[in-house]
């Protein structure tokens, strides 16, 4: 029986000719990732278990991104734990303030992850790297500790849902609208324990930033991973960037899928997930009566260059509506620098927005844009759970950077319409 793309990568890393859905395997890891919240717990477990060295100093990545620059004394202690561990084990991919970015924007940008990799990260959005044709999944801190110590992890081989993409996205839509539409269709556990494999003629039209965004939110449908085939765009993106040689895997022609879902990209509309689940999706055009207090453009989902470009195109020369706080957070230092170079940073300030250094901050209600009781935010982030961005009685609506920027100008939820 044929294998899916995910199964092929897992088989290769388990040293097996083939694997089948449901099989328990032990697989070699190419990268083990953690951040400033999950790494301290992993470090503690690592030490408690009596391990004294990491399996490979070049295969561990530790990124300080959730609460840095340190939001308070306790956060500073957590950063310090990460820093000391990284230093004492000579971890080569340690990213501190000044070098850091939001982990899932940073690792692909810096070429730390590549096609064909098997990656675990103690962060649920580790599934992002499937955009490069890697198997990549989120785990907890104990798995991170075990991965750092042994370079191995256990997996139950997932079955898969195939998403057959056709057509071309409308110009006011992006990858975010695609993945929100899909989560709206299948629900927040619609792909539980499964792979989401994106294929079809429509893939070639999607940019790498679109694909990274789509795979990023696979976890919001409960999936183990999301994955795209490697095409010319992927190869071009990886060329001269990835520090290790990409390995291209393809699904077998007779691979088995639990389900095949057809998505016509030309029919996608600007989509918003309403509180308090990412599956509560509605077209933005039906939500014009919803006023907002805050707009956030950033996060591991939408803090990349094309997201900044969408914000710039819409906000440039305009003013953010009175009563709206618009917070823009470029995902990495390189993206931030590029925004400065291109004059976008100035345009954002002139529009009445604020720009922050890279951080996960507001997405998880950490800092840099916390909501009061009764307040409402439209954000390009990935979760709108109860209390996610602040007070338990606040609300988060999820949307694309186009919709977010248009909403910031209007003061109420609206889709972007080209003039």
């Amino acid at each position, binding site marked *: 029986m044929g294998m899916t793309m995910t199964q092929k990568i897992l088989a290769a890393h388990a040293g097996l000719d083939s694997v089948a859905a449901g099989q328990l395997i032990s697989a070699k890891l190419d990268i083990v990732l953690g951040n400033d919240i999950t790494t301290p*717990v992993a470090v503690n477990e690592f030490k408690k278990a009596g391990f004294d060295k990491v399996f490979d100093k070049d295969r561990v990545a530790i990124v300080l991104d959730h609460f840095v620059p340190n939001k308070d004394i306790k956060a500073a202690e*957590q950063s310090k734990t990460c820093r000391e561990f990284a230093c004492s084990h000579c971890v080569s991919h340690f990213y501190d303030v000044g070098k850091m970015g939001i982990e899932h924007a940073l690792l692909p940008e810096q070429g730390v992850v590549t096609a064909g990799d098997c990656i675990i*990260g103690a962060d649920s959005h580790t599934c992002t790297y499937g955009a490069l044709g890697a198997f990549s999944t989120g*785990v*907890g801190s104990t798995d991170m500790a075990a991965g750092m110590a042994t370079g191995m992890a256990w997996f139950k081989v997932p079955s898969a849902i195939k998403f057959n993409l056709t057509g071309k996205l409308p110009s006011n839509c992006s990858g975010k609208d695609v993945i929100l539409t899909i989560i709206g269709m299948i629900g927040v556990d619609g792909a539980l324990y499964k792979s989401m494999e994106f294929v079809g003629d429509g893939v070639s039209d999607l940019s790498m930033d679109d694909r990274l965004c789509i795979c990023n939110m696979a976890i919001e449908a*409960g999936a183990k991973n999301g994955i795209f085939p490697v095409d010319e765009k992927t190869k071009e993106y990886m060329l001269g960037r990835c520090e290790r040689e990409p390995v291209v895997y393809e699904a077998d022609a007779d691979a088995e899928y639990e389900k095949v879902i057809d998505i016509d990209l030309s029919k996608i509309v600007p989509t918003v997930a309403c509180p308090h*689940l990412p599956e509560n999706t509605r077209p933005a055009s039906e939500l014009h009566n919803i006023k907002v207090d805050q707009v956030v453009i950033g996060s591991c989902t939408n803090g990349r260059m094309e997201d900044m470009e969408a914000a710039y195109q819409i906000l440039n020369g305009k003013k953010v509506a009175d009563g709206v706080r618009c917070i823009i957070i470029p995902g990495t230092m390189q993206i931030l620098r590029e925004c400065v170079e291109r004059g976008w940073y100035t345009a954002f300030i002139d529009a009445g927005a604020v720009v922050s250094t890279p951080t996960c901050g507001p997405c998880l209600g*950490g800092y840099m844009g916390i909501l009061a009781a009764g307040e409402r935010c439209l954000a390009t982030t990935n979760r709108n759970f109860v209390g996610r961005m602040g007070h338990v009685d606040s609300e988060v609506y999820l949307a694309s950077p186009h919709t977010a920027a248009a909403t910031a100008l209007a003061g109420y939820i609206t889709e972007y319409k080209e003039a």
Partner: protein
Amino acid sequence: MNTQGKVFKYPDNVDTDVIIPARYLNTPDAKELALHCMEDIDTEFVKKVQKGDVMVAGWNFGCGSSREHAPLVIKTCGTGCVIAKSFARIFYRNAINIGLPILECEEAADEINSDDEVSVDFDTGVITDITTGKTYKAQPFPPFIQNIIKSGGLLKSLKEGENNG
């Protein structure tokens, strides 16, 4: 191994942000974090929960973030077991890895009520609702996972493997 206690019942899609809100995640200290377990959907939980009590929930329990702090605070509060119709996959892994017993059983999750007295036998997967007298059988774990649980978590099982190998 088993547990017995009172039931705290929750709906579908209980996410890790309500199990332990990220605003408290500036510390890895489980005891300090446990003071805030479930507070965004149930402010009474930490006041009432006693050692051995059982959480019963619907589909997709523990969805969202990968924070291991979520199963850890549930365990630290004294909760003896979580029964749900299904678990989000990272929560499922984390619970096994840190030694929080979890069981999937749709019928039990539907029929058991809040405040019922329930006992759970982890070896057999048998759940008994002492209040109603009904029993349920949950899916047992595959042997590979049972080994992790018996060793007391993933890292201890790895160390055992190292010593045996």
